[in-house]
């Protein structure tokens, strides 16, 4: 039952989310947030190791707002992070909305919308990963099941990660 509810709840939450305002997911420790911050390459910010263009999409990005570094871990696309959405804004200050999940183990940010200037226009939904994936691989209902790299990894060791285990049994 829990699996069924989860499988219905995640897409429903996404489909019902308007493009201009953060949507609650009902997660423990979540907080709806909207703030302006500078898009940064996290490794660059921490260690001064700063390749051009925030690493060109290969690094984890975050936002610095009022001196606090936020790790942007998730976008609106299922099973996808926010790097591709933030990358065009590397080094620039933008406004985001989304969920700050302040789990004691680690606070992380789900960026749901981005707009260039605070208070001006609608938030654009964070769906760049899916757009890029579709451009590279073609349309799929579930990018994660159709992804060739994921399929290859799962073909090697199986859905459970071990060749000696089978699923379903």
């Amino acid at each position: 039952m829990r699996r069924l509810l989860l499988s219905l709840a995640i897409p429903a939450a996404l489909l019902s989310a308007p493009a201009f305002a953060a949507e609650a997911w009902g997660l423990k420790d979540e907080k709806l947030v909207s703030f302006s911050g500078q898009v940064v390459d996290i490794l660059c910010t921490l260690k001064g190791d700063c390749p051009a263009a925030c690493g060109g999409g290969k690094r984890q990005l975050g936002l610095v707002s009022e001196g606090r570094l936020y790790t942007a871990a998730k976008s609106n696309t299922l099973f996808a992070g926010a790097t591709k959405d933030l990358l065009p804004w590397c080094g620039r200050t933008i406004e985001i909305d989304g969920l700050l999940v302040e789990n004691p183990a680690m606070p992380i940010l789900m960026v749901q919308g981005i707009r260039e200037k605070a208070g001006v226009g609608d938030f654009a939904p964070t769906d760049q990963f899916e757009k890029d994936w579709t451009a590279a691989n073609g349309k799929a209902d579930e990018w994660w099941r159709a992804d060739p790299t994921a399929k290859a990894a799962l073909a090697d060791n199986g859905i459970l990660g071990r060749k000696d285990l089978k699923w379903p049994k």
Partner: protein
Amino acid sequence: MTKILQRGVLWLVTLLAVAALVPNHGLAQEGRRVTVTGEISDTWCSISGLMFAKGTAHHQCAIWCALGGIPVSIRDASGALYLVLKIGDDEDSAANPRVAKMATHEVVVEGELLERDGVKYLLVDRIADDKGVILMTHDEHGIQPFGN
């Protein structure tokens, strides 16, 4: 003397302008050396509590999330999460297929730990041990999150 002063001011202004353009907040931190033992896990699933995010039950989902560019962390036995920003010379921390292949593996790593604003960031120097997937959770939790 005036020319020297003018040049000095010009250099200072140039330096400040360049510094303002580089999105680097704060000076480079020096971390501390650590050895971390734990499971390579998906940060979002672990933090959000949306599903059971450990072991064999979560292997497939962890691969999807890693390839989708969600940060990968190592979760130790106490539940602490260490967000991995590099492994050796490989600084690709978003959608790195090499890292995705290690999803749910139990590993021992050595590296530098940096903490900021409640997040533990780990710069892995060396994977000292990779035991593969050893936490058996699928009997109890099935395949997360969809059952197949």
